[in-house]
Structures are given as structure tokens and as C-alpha cells.
């Protein structure tokens, strides 16, 4: 069994007002070194199967079809084998 840990974030070119609000909150808390903050989604998907390449291809397809909208979002993921 595999576990995919998927991050979906707004593209750099898309305004992220949530991220901007959190960045200014961090700045007002004294974290002056904060240059930027983006808010995204984190998903954990478990898949049955034994072939990591196949699992990777499936997760990539899931991201393209549903989990991320390519017009506004980017995605990255890691896959690890986990005990069934």
C-alpha cells in the first residue's frame, strides 16, 4: 500500500489574500524575516497496489483531473510505501 501526501497551492501569478493576511499577522507578531506566505491544501491519499510507478502515475492523474485546478493551482506530492 502507498500513501501520497499532496500539496496544492495557488499559482504564483494568482493573488492569495489569505496568505497575505497571515503574512501581515506574522510580521506584526515580530517575525520581520517573513517575506511571503501562501496558503494551500494538504491531502493524504492511500492507494492499494505494489507498483510505485503505477501509484505515482495514478496520483498525478488524480491531481490533474480533480484535486488541483490547473488554471489557478500547482501541485506537488510525495509517495511512500506504508504497511497495509
Amino acid at each position: 500500500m502507498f500513501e501520497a501526501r499532496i500539496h496544492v497551492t495557488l499559482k504564483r501569478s494568482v493573488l492569495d489574500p489569505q496568505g497575505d493576511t497571515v503574512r501581515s499577522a506574522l510580521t506584526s507578531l515580530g517575525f520581520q524575516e517573513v517575506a511571503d506566505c501562501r496558503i494551500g491544501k494538504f491531502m493524504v491519499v492511500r492507494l492499494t497496489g505494489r507498483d510505485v510507478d503505477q501509484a505515482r502515475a495514478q496520483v498525478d492523474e488524480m491531481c490533474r483531473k480533480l484535486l488541483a485546478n490547473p488554471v489557478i493551482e500547482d501541485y506537488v506530492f510525495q509517495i511512500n510505501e506504508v504497511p497495509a
Partner: protein
Amino acid sequence: MKWGVLIFPGTWSHQDFAHVFQDVLRVPWGYVWHKDSSVAGYDALFLPGGFAHGDYLRCGAIARFSPIMDAVIRFAQDGGPVLGSCNGFQILCEAGLLSGALLRNSSLQYRCRWVHIRTESSDTPFTCGGRPGQVLRIPISHGEGRYFAPPETLAQLQENDQIIFRYCTPDGRVTDEANPNGALENIAGVCNKARNVLGLMPHPERASEALLGSKDGRLLFDSMLTPAFRR
């Protein structure tokens, strides 16, 4: 002639459309459930506002895969008129029938109020009864209505005259102050390249009777009833 109003789990504006069709326009209409697989017998389709499938993941992302959507996409590809308002607009974008996407309002707040929108083009089945520059007073009610499209898509929309409505002042000026959600270029509504699919964030079905404060929304429905575009 019969108009179809789609219902997904979580849709909430379908009764407003039904009321306008039944009691104001007296147009034959029927509901289409999201698990249906056919839209046979309908001459126009309407995707109302609400929170289809809870708007989980992204607005419209799950609804786009409801069983009925294959039939809606075929209907649109065959030239049938499809109008999506609010959540319906979001679903049409997710389905790829319209370009762009709708994001969280730049204020991060839900906005429920009257706005003014300027009709940018009368060359659609939904605006052919109006004139370019015509200002409509119509309510919005959404938290995720900030229209966005990448630069190359925006250029195509402009080149093909696909931007149909922009937020404006009561006298028709497109200003930042008149933009309720931070939409790119004040865009409130766009159509597809073939011009038979329109999405807009405002609710024309809630502005179709003077008693309710405005009947400007009727422009869209009355246009669809003009002989030139009647199917």
C-alpha cells in the same frame, strides 16, 4: 419549448429560477436532477447558485463530475444555450465549458448585496435583447466570485468579445470601487467562444420582478425568448 433547471445536492437557487419561469415568464420548465443522464426535451439549461456537493475541494469541482454533466457538455457542444449563475458559473468553469476560474473574494468576506453590471456585448442569446453599455442592477451573493484567467486566456476573451458583463458604477463606469470581489478587469460574466454558454456571478433570477427591487435580470431571459435565438 421547455427550459431545464439543474439541481445538484446543495443547489439552492433552483426555486428562484422556477418561480420566474412559472409565475413571471410563464415558460414551460422542469427540474433536472444531477443523477439524470439525459437532457432530452429541453431547449435551454440553467445551472443555479448554491453549494453543489458542499463546494468541497473547490467550488464546482465535484459537481463537474455529476452524471448529468456529460449530457450538459454534449448539449452545449451542439449549440444549446446554457446559463450558469453563481455556483452554476463555477461549475461551468470547472467543467471546461467556460474559461477561467472563480477564487475567494479578495476581501475574504461573503458579499450579499446589489451591484451594477455593464453589458459589454449584446451578441449572445442571453443579451441580444439589450445593447452594449446597458447597466443592470442585479444582486450578488457569494464568497468565491473573484474571476481569474491567465493573461493568454484573458487576451483570447477580449479578442473574441467573450467578456459579457463587468461590475460598474450605477452610471456604467468600470472602477475598482464598483468591483465587489476583486475580479480580474471587473469581470462579472463571460461566454464561451461559440457564445451559447454564459456564466455570471450575479443572480438574474433574483432581479426579475419590480416588487423585489429590480427586473433588470429579465434581460437575460427575455433575450432567450426572442425569436432569433429561440430553438
